[in-house]
Each structure stands twice: as structure tokens, then as C-alpha cells.
């Protein structure tokens, strides 16, 4: 069998789902545990890893995936030797196990794609066997057996290696085009176009000329590189129709190094980063046993089904509120009609229904919660790879992994977190030499902490590196025309550090330093704000930086301040609101003809909310008006509204495709009386108004 050929496995659609879910779970566990193994091997951990490999062996053998079963078998043998203390899990052993793990991932993906990825585990198995036999010459065995980089010319692997060293990612992408597609050449060309829109494509097979001439066939292989994740590649490919299975494999330094004749810089043996995972104190002992017990008592539920339940409960909550209003309206009528008994029954039923509905909502919300561990577990491996790549010594400390949040939030937070962490190591931490010169320990520390506070979850990534150079940041922001010189100079250091989130800013000193902070941080902020979150940064020169991400516990509901403007009810998410006050009591000035609010010694624009949204003042507001002060990053704006209606949990509903993305609005919510209120997109409205005023 060779690469690109269709594969048959012994499983149906349901089994497939089960297989991939289980495989993903075990692979993720292996990813974390193997890296930990290198640091501090303990019997429990080894047992856990052994069991994961054993489970994978069993399931792959059941479906008839011979290569996967054979590779897991080889891994199992090594792990068995470690378990029996016949073999010490030093970094060489862990290296090979990690290479094997990467290959396993590709093999597991074949079950979904049903196409041979070209991965032949024989050489890795040989290396595993060498380790078992105490043969240290194992490293001499070529890793090209994974066949991913092997199929490309050495010069390409060399190019990719340079990209990796520069902080980019490299992928081996194999795309198949449906046999039924009559013009595969066009699809190949489209694939190339889509991929080139997100990254560079240094190599393709068939070659670029053939593709551009429209001579592509039903399969296309290419090397892709850029500051991108696998998901970006997959999303780009989604835009092309008629595609069959797609295999996207992340290439590691080791793999590429094996495929090039040149020795890469960066991964110096013996300079391994140290890793430590700190369990939260309470959960430290018996956490593994607890996890095992939990697993046996849980049931897998389709996320769509949970989402459906969530929506139904949302509607129930609204009906409950309406029922309460009806009860209040009916109250005097029933009393007058002397229907005391009926009234009492009505009251009791309504209040019972209210309680049950609240509990139901709470329970369903909980059932969608996942411990943040599922994201954090990816980090040790990432730290290991990134620190080796940039020649830094890093100790990773994680805590609060038990903190739970909604799975939709978890999905959104993973990429930003990885980005921040990568930047902390690449740019935040100094090289061992610089650290020594600064009188710091050679090994830098990056601490990732998660915790709950009220209805938010916080994630902090803190490093003890050199901190952010605010002088450089100010100059860059001015040079790039992102901010006026006087504004930049007037900003406090605290405010200047926030410039790092400005779009299009990079503090990288040289062009090769491509994982420049600005590019990434802009995306990080956008992603976090998309889920109603906030990100801020604190930095102290010479001492380090800390990024703090604030996220709502769930995306389904948002806490908001309800206000009235021009006869319409608006919900202003509380995460951005700083305070609300009477217009009469606010300190309002006129600066250059614009109304300006002074609050706590700072001046910022005061804008009519309805006007900001494009709703002219058609109705003269009656009575006293209010000012709602709101903040987004370092920008602040005061919004004038007609009335304050109090705080409320709002269920976010889309405005629908016909209305689409309306300026300044994120959606609608159903109010107690059954009518609709509009939810304000605070970040975009604040940015726009602050900019407009400046």
C-alpha cells in the first residue's frame, strides 16, 4: 500500500465517532504525560501512559489498522520496560516516544480520511526497539520513515526548518479531490490559491507550473508554512468544493532535521527545558483515581443536543418571566373576584416553576462545562518545542486546571492562549546568557493560572522575563501611524503597554523575527473579544510580563445593563461597563465643540447611544437622562441613554442572515414582555467612538 491509496477499516459511522473520540482523548493524554515523564517519572504516571498506549493498540487492532496497532505495540514494549524500571525515561527515550506519538496521530487520522497518509512506522519501531536493546545508535536511524518530509526534496525541508527556527509553523498537506470531479486541475489551482492566501507554499507535487497550467490531478501534496495553525489550513481548504480526505500534518524540527543534510540550530542536547505541572493543592492526591472513576460514570452526549437543550431552556426562562408578569397582572383581578384559592394555587405553581426552571438552566449550563485542563494539557508539549526552538530554558508551572468553563468558550480560547504562551517564551524570556548577566536564574519561569471569580473565568500567563519595552512600543506605534506622538508620549507606562494590542504593530527588531508580538496580539485580542472577553497586560521592566484573559463562564447568556434609548431597549454587556450615573451629576465639559465627560480625572467623549448606532434623535427624551461609562482596553467612552432598566442575564440570539452584522450590534435578546431588545457590540462601538473623537 502506498501513500494516497484508499484504505478500508472495519467500522461503521457510529464506531468511527467512538474511535476518533477515544483516540483523541488517549493521544491528548499521551501528549501531556510523555512530556511530564521526562521531568519526574513516577509509577502512577508510567502506568497511565502504558494504559493509554494499550487502549490505542486495542482499538486500532479491532478496526484492522495494522500499522497503528504495530506502532502502539512497539511503544507499549518500551513503556513496559520503563514501568519495570529496566529503562530510564531520559530525554532520548521521550524524544522517540514523541516522534512515535506524532506518527500515531497521522495514523489515527487515516481512519477518518480513509486515505493512506504515506506514514510507515517501521523505522520508528526500529528506533523503539533499539532503545529497548540499549542501543543508543538509535538516533542514527532516519526518521524519514514518517514519509511526510521524505517525499519532499531536502532543500524544501531546509527551507521549512529555517521557517520553524524563525518561529513559524510548517505543515505537510495532502489533499485528495473527489474521483467524481471532472476538472480536478481547477480544484488543485483553487487549493493552491486558498492556501497561499494564508501562508507560503514553498513546494508542491505535482509542481506549481503544472498546477497553474491547470494540469493538476486528483491528488495534491504540498508544504505550507506561516504563522498559522492547522485549523487555518483546514478552514482555507473548506472553501474549495469537491475535496475528498485532507491530511494536514504539523512538521517538527526533528522530522525536518532528519530530512535535511544540515544540522539545525536550536535543539542542543542536554539543554532540555524543565517542565513541572502543579496540581491544585486540593486535587493533588488521588486525582488520577478520581478521573478514572468519573469516566466510568459519564455518558457521551452530542454537543448539538446540548446546544438544543440550552436553547429550549432559554425559551423556558423567557416564558417563566412572562408568566410572572401575567401573575402580577392577574393578582388584583383574582383578589377582587374573591378567588383566593385559585390565586394561591396560581402563586404556588408559578413560584415552583420558577425554581425548577432556574435549576434546570443551571444544570444544563453545568453539563456544557469542561475543565480548562483540556486546553492546558497541550501546553507542556508546546513549551518543550518552542523553548528548544529558541534555545531558552523554561519551567512551566500550571495551576487551576480544574476550573470549568463552557465548551464553546474553551474552543475559542485555545488559540489565543497558545499564541500568548509562545510569545512569552520567544520574546518575554531572555536567553540563558542574558538571564545570567541580569543576575537571574538561567531557567525562566512561565506560570499559567486559571481561576473563577464571580461569573468570569480568568487565565493568566506570566513570565519572569525582561518585560515589555514601553519606549520601543511608543515609537513603533507612532512610526506605524497607529497613534499620534503627543498621545503616545502622554500615555502612562501602564497605558503604553496596551499598545501591544494595536493592529499592525510589531516590536520585532529584525525581519526574520517573524513571530513579532504585534501581529499575534492583535489577533489574540480579536479572538477573545469575539467571545465577550477581555485581555489586558501588565509589565515591569526586568521583572516580566503578565497577560490576563477575562472570559464569561458561558456564551449562551451574558450579564448586561439594560438601558432605553429612543424607545428601544438595549443590553450593554457588563464586562465593558464601568459605571452609570445621572447626566445631571456627571462632570460634562465642552472641548472643541464636543461634549466630553470627566471621570476620575480623565476626559473622554460623551456620545448619545442612539446616535452612535445611527438612530437619529426623532423623539425628544423626557425626564432625566443617564451616562453609562464604558471601557474597552485603554479606550473609554460615555454613552448617553434615556433610562436605566437594571441588570439582567440576557440570552444572546443572532439577528439572522437577512439583517446580518449590523454596526455596533451583536444580536438580540427576548425581554420579559416578549418583545426584543438589541445587544450592543461594546468593543466595536467604543473603539469607533473613541477614534472618532480623537
Amino acid at each position, binding site marked *: 500500500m502506498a501513500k494516497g491509496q484508499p484504505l478500508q477499516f472495519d467500522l461503521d459511522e457510529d464506531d468511527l465517532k467512538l474511535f476518533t473520540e477515544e483516540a483523541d482523548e488517549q493521544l491528548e493524554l499521551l501528549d501531556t504525560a510523555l512530556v511530564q515523564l521526562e521531568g519526574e517519572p513516577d509509577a502512577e504516571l508510567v502506568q497511565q501512559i502504558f494504559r493509554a498506549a494499550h487502549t490505542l493498540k486495542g482499538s486500532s487492532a479491532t478496526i484492522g489498522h495494522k500499522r497503528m496497532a504495530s506502532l502502539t505495540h512497539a511503544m507499549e514494549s518500551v513503556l513496559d520496560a520503563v514501568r519495570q524500571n529496566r529503562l530510564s525515561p531520559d530525554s532520548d527515550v521521550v524524544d522517540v516516544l514523541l516522534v512515535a506519538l506524532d506518527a500515531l496521530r497521522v495514523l489515527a487520522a487515516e481512519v477518518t480520511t480513509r486515505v493512506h497518509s504515506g506514514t510507515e512506522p517501521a523505522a520508528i519501531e526500529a528506533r523503539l526497539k533499539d532503545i529497548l536493546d540499549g542501543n543508543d545508535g538509535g538516533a542514527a536511524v532516519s526518521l524519514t520513515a514518517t514519509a511526510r518530509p521524505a517525499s519532499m526534496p531536502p532543500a524544501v525541508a531546509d527551507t521549512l526548518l529555517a521557517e520553524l527556527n524563525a518561529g513559524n509553523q510548517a505543515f505537510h498537506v495532502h489533499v485528495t479531490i473527489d474521483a467524481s470531479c471532472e476538472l480536478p486541475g481547477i480544484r488543485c489551482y483553487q487549493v493552491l490559491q486558498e492556501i*497561499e*492566501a*494564508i*501562508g*507560503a507554499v514553498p513546494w508542491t507535487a505535482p509542481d506549481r507550473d503544472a498546477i497553474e497550467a491547470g494540469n493538476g490531478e486528483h491528488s495534491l501534496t504540498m508544504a505550507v508554512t*506561516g*504563522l*498559522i495553525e492547522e485549523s*487555518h489550513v483546514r478552514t482555507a481548504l473548506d472553501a474549495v468544493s469537491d475535496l475528498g480526505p485532507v491530511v494536514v500534518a504539523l512538521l517538527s524540527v526533528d522530522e525536518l532535521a532528519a530530512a535535511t543534510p544540515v544540522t539545525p540550530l536550536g535543539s542542543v542536547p542536554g539543554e532540555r527545558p524543565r517542565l513541572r505541572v502543579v496540581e491544585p493543592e486540593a486535587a493533588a492526591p488521588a486525582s488520577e483515581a478520581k478521573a478514572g472513576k468519573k469516566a466510568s460514570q459519564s455518558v457521551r452526549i452530542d454537543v448539538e443536543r446540548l446546544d438544543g437543550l440550552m*436553547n429550549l431552556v*432559554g*425559551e423556558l426562562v*423567557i416564558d417563566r418571566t412572562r408568566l410572572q408578569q401575567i401573575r402580577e397582572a392577574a393578582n388584583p383581578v383574582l383578589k377582587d373576584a374573591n378567588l383566593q384559592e385559585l390565586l394561591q394555587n396560581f402563586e404556588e405553581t408559578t413560584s415552583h416553576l420558577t425554581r425548577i426552571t432556574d435549576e434546570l438552566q443551571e444544570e444544563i449550563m453545568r453539563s456544557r462545562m469542561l475543565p480548562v485542563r483540556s486546553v492546558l494539557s497541550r501546553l507542556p508539549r508546546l513549551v518543550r518545542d518552542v523553548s528548544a526552538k529558541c534555545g531558552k530554558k523554561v519551567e512551566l508551572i500550571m495551576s487551576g486546571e480544574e476550573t470549568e468553563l463552557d465548551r464553546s468558550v474553551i474552543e475559542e480560547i485555545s488559540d489565543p492562549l497558545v499564541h500568548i504562551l509562545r510569545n512569552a517564551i520567544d520574546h518575554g524570556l531572555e536567553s540563558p546568557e542574558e538571564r545570567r548577566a541580569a543576575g537571574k536564574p538561567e531557567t525562566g519561569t512561565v506560570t499559567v493560572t486559571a481561576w473563577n471569580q464571580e461569573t468570569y473565568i480568568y487565565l493568566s500567563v506570566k513570565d519572569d522575563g525582561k518585560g515589555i519595552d514601553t519606549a520601543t512600543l511608543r515609537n513603533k506605534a507612532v512610526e506605524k501611524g497607529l497613534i499620534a506622538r503627543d498621545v503616545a508620549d502622554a500615555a502612562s507606562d501602564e497605558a503604553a503597554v496596551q499598545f501591544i494590542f494595536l*493592529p*499592525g504593530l510589531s516590536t520585532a527588531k529584525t525581519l526574520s523575527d*517573524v513571530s513579532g508580538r504585534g*501581529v499575534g496580539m*492583535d*489577533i489574540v485580542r*480579536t479572538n477573545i473579544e469575539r467571545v465577550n472577553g477581555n485581555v489586558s497586560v501588565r509589565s515591569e521592566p526586568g521583572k516580566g510580563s503578565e497577560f490576563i484573559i477575562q472570559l464569561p463562564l458561558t456564551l449562551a447568556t451574558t450579564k448586561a445593563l439594560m438601558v432605553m434609548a*429612543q424607545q*428601544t*431597549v438595549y443590553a450593554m454587556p457588563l464586562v465593558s461597563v464601568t459605571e452609570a450615573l445621572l447626566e445631571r451629576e456627571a462632570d460634562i465639559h465642552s472641548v472643541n465643540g464636543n461634549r466630553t465627560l470627566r471621570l476620575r480625572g480623565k476626559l473622554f467623549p460623551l456620545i448619545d447611544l*442612539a446616535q452612535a*448606532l*445611527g*438612530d437619529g434623535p426623532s423623539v425628544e427624551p423626557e425626564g432625566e437622562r443617564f451616562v453609562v461609562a464604558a471601557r474597552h482596553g485603554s479606550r473609554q467612552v460615555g454613552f448617553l441613554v434615556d433610562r436605566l432598566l437594571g441588570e439582567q442575564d440576557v440570552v444572546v*440570539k*443572532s*439577528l*439572522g*442572515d*437577512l*439583517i*446580518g*452584522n*449590523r*454596526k*455596533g*450590534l451583536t*444580536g*438580540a435578546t*427576548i425581554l420579559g414582555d*416578549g*418583545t*426584543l*431588545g*438589541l445587544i450592543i457590540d461594546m468593543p466595536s462601538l467604543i473603539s469607533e467612538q473613541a477614534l472618532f473623537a480623537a
Partner: protein
Amino acid sequence: MARPGAFATEDEQAPSAEEHVVVFRLGQEFYALDIQAVQEIVRIQPTTSIPGSEPWVEGITNLRGRVVPVIDLRRRCGVQAADHTSDSRVVVVGGTTGMVGLIVDAVTEVMRIPVDQIEAPGSIVSVPQNSYLRGIAKLEDRLVSLMDLDGVLPSREMGERDEAGQTETIARAA
């Protein structure tokens, strides 16, 4: 039966072919929508207007827990605006952009129109924008214009997504 929204082609034009439609009134004119596209007909209910939206978008309304945009069909079709009456209704249709409510002056009947009584929209139309129309049915006592749903519901302008991050990547890769 003819396919919804399309003229019967020659090979499917049997003598008994007819279109099943919901007929409604807009000003003095009668219009019809394919019954397959109509999900329900409700009384006028409160709508929340969307600041900055096109004038013919009445707003959004809550239809049993769903947020449904509502279009004032008079304004959309260039018929002079008028106040809603007790006969006014919202015809809820399922278009390519999801559920949409259309405000009409009255829903008059549900009927079957023989395909051979339907002609292509021509000079007899008094409504200026006849791109909404896909045919005119000549009945004994009046004319009924067959409305093309996709013509009434414009597809949303694309390209609003924030692609800033991707642009950065391109810039560097280039």
C-alpha cells in the same frame, strides 16, 4: 405540480398542472407566494427597529422564541406606505437567508392557479420594480402577480468579516 418558484418546462407541463399559492393584497393589487415557501401567517406583532437598517426593514420580532426579521412589503415594493389595519398580517416565509416576516395589507385566500393562466411579467404590471415578479396570473375577475421570493429578499452584502489577522499573514508570506 410544477416545481416551486419555477415555470413548468415543456416536458412537465401536463394539462392539469397548477400552482398552489397564498394570495394577499398590497394596496389595490393582488400578489401570490408559493404555498411551499409560506410557513405561517400571524397578526401584526410588536417589532424592534434596527438602527441604520434599510427603510423597508420594519425590524425584528419574537416568533415563539425565534428572532425573525420583518420586512414592510409595501415599502419594499414601492407601494405608498399606509398604516397597519386589523386586516394587516405578517406572512412568515422561509427564504435562503432564514425565516423572514413580510407585512401585507391582507391575506385573501389560498388557491390553485392553472399554469396555463400564468404569463411572463410584461407591460401590464403597474409596480415599478418587476424583478420581484415571476409571472402574472389572469383570473376571471382580476390579475394576481406571482412574487419571486428571492427577488424580494436581497442577499446580504458579503465581506463584513474581520479578516485583519489573515491579511497580516499574507503580508508576511508575500
